[in-house]
């Protein structure tokens, strides 16, 4: 007897060229954000659904940034799996820097498909659509419900995309588990992420002539001392949940992080990091500066809440009466995670081993994705996708076979999650 998994794999194989063309066509539809005009990209995906008689709704709180929502129930009670991908991509930069026919070419060279968004995340979004269509066809062999969400406005924060769906259509999109095809590499499954905490510090002093150092404090020198004081934030110990701590001490996980993100990355995942992205102070060499601005990019690990960070920063600022601070990142986000030993994680690992021969390890990463909306609502969300190495670059691309593997792993793991 042929298993559902075998059927899915053979159907993917028989539609190989069709699937490649499907991704190519999507890449050839520009959806850069900013500016965030994604109507054409959404229309492309709508055609896919319409041609297969798959019902869907368009939810467009901003007319130029539509979101698509489709769902089907099987005949049996069961769990609710949600697929999530985004339509918008990074801006393309300068066309002349692209080496493979421009940012929207979808050119295939040496078995790689090129264009802005191929990796982040049109590869993954197409995997969600193909998975949805395949499982719909075989819904008689499944239990529960499958929902497909394709959103705009991921690159600029999600207010009009996933954030909007969670605010206004929560019952339809939260589900019991989320599978997302953002880049992860074949070696990892992402189960959590740090969160950015961006602060702008403004230091104001009286100012004076530069020779008269006794007349005024120097905003720049205070900024320097503040920078040094802020370094203590990187020593904060996180209240790491035990499951996460265990995961982060796993040698295979540490190796995967260092391989994927550069040597030293594994050490930083559980830590607060501090980048002083911008410093701008003073008008002139020979004036004591009366104003200096510091922009700090603090990344909070799982186990350090924004509330705690705010308290720590306030404590430091007690020693700096001349300094005011403003938070410019989204105040409601938190570092987020789901079970690194959860059921869906194992299903993805098993599917990946079957498809690629590689067992991806669960990791927490530094980048923020829409998966956080599920995790912060208590719903496990896992990310499995192509390599992130070229995302956002002028050579952004995905291997053709790599893309098909993402489709295969998504289809198999989703089917396994909804198996009777």
């Amino acid at each position: 007897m042929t298993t559902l998994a075998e059927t899915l794999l053979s159907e993917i194989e028989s539609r190989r060229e069709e699937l490649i063309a499907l991704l190519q066509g999507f890449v050839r539809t520009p959806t850069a954000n900013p500016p965030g005009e994604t109507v054409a990209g959404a229309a492309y995906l709508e055609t896919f659904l319409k041609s297969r008689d798959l019902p869907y709704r368009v939810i467009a709180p901003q007319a130029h940034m539509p979101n698509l929502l489709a769902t089907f129930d099987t005949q049996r009670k069961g769990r609710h799996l949600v697929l999530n991908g985004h339509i918008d991509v990074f801006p393309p930069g300068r066309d002349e820097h692209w080496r493979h026919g421009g940012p929207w070419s979808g050119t295939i060279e040496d078995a790689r498909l090129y264009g802005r968004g191929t990796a982040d995340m049109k590869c993954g979004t197409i995997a969600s659509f193909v998975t949805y269509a395949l499982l719909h066809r075989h819904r008689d062999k499944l239990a529960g419900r499958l929902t497909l969400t394709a959103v705009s406005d991921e690159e600029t924060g999600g207010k009009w995309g996933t954030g909007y769906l969670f605010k206004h259509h929560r019952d339809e999109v939260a589900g019991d588990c989320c599978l997302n095809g953002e880049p992860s590499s074949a070696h990892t499954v992402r189960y959590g992420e740090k969160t950015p905490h961006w602060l702008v510090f403004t230091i104001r002093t009286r100012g004076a002539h530069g020779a008269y150092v006794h007349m005024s404090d120097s905003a720049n020198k205070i900024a320097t001392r503040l920078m040094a004081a802020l370094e203590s934030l990187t020593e904060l110990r996180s209240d790491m949940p035990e499951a996460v701590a265990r995961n982060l001490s796993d040698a295979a996980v540490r190796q995967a992080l260092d391989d994927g993100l550069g040597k030293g990355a594994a050490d930083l995942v559980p830590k607060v990091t501090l980048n002083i992205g911008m410093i701008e102070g003073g008008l002139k060499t020979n004036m004591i500066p009366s104003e200096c601005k510091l922009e700090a990019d603090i990344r909070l690990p799982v186990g350090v809440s924004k509330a705690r960070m705010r308290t720590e920063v306030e404590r430091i600022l007690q020693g700096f009466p001349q300094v005011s601070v403003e938070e410019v990142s989204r105040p409601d986000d938190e570092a987020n995670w789901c079970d690194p030993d959860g059921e869906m994680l194992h299903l993805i690992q098993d599917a990946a081993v079957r498809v690629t021969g590689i067992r991806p390890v669960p990791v927490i990463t530094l980048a923020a994705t829409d998966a956080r909306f599920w995790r912060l609502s208590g719903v496990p969300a896992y990310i499995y996708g192509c390599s992130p190495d070229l995302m956002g670059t002028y050579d952004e691309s995905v291997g053709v076979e790599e893309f098909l593997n993402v489709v295969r792993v998504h289809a198999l793991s989703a089917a396994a999650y909804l198996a009777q």
Partner: protein
Amino acid sequence: MNSLEKELLASLDAGRDRSIAFLRDLLRIPSPNPPGDTRAAANFLQKALSDAGLEPRVFSPHPEMPNIVAGFDGGHAGRHLVLNGHIDVFPVAAHEWTRDPWGGEIVDGRIYGRGACDMKCGLASITLAFLHLHAVRDRLKGRLTYTAVSDEETFGPWGARWMFENHRDLMMGDCLLSGEPSSPLCVRFGEKSPIWIAINIRTPGGHGAYTHTSTSANKIAGAIVTALEEVADVPVRAPDNLVAMFRDPSIAAQVDEGCGIGHASYISKPTLNIGRMSGGLKVNVLPSECRVEADIRLPVGLTREEMRPVIAEILSRFPEATWEELSPPHDSPNWSHPGGEMMQILQDTVVGFGRRRPVPVITLGATDTRLWRYNGVPAYIYGASPDTMAAADENVLIEDYLHILKTHVLAAARYLGSA
């Protein structure tokens, strides 16, 4: 007080309102440097001179930075006194001001505006002093020269420096009197010298979340700023008489009263100001470049040649940093005789007005007077309180301005002498 001096004071009293209006008008003409365009303010001064029948010469080696020179001979042979002021002022961070920086507003006996103390008060004063003395020139001895220059605030090349390099004969005299800020309680006879350096820090850069991938140009800049504080500890060997002067508690107290608490103690120490820091592109990018501009002041008794290797050693600890010197490479701390004739004239004149005897001071800031001292001409400064110099809401007390004007007129008349 002789009859000429009495006449001069009487005409100053009669012209009180015109003198105040003259300064306010000058403050209403912006001349910030950078960018340093002083043409409008220079036109205003030229017109004042021309209206009195003088024929000012204008030198504009930079088309937006004119320098004005005028002069006259007295009715009798004598010494040559030069008056000097600069037309450009510091730039303005307008949002920090509660007054219009170019409004010349009067509030509670003070005139507000950028340059009110540094040094449009002094510039208005030497201009009016020159005109008052011109009116009685037949009875004066010697020669009086008026110089109003541009490009002083950045010690750029197009002002007094250019004039000395190209028209030294027009600038030279037997003595120089400047109206730069000094505080009415002090006469400046010397000054510290600035070393300005620009430091550029370069690192590979990267994504702001991936702090393990590169060092941070901004954090290195912070470490450099901290390390540079060591320049304040470099030993100084000042002449004994100067050391003794500023250890005198009564002199030190009056210096601090006039120039700000702490001034006296910084006269003989090197200081460090970090005037500018600028690094990074975006909050979430690891910065690959940061620029720091440092303003180090050398006291009398410490040369550039001694300070440079100290700076070089500190910065050599930071391989990501390169640096260059921005200030004129040959300047040095400089002073005229603290008991010189013009010093005594200024002190006696001020006492004659019933004010406290001003004490000699070496100042922390540098001025164009250094150029006269380098050329062997004794140079003295008497001007407004530096209290709000370069700060928001810069202002001068009207009574101080009028007092400075009277002092300049009488001191110049006394130096030249009358027949």
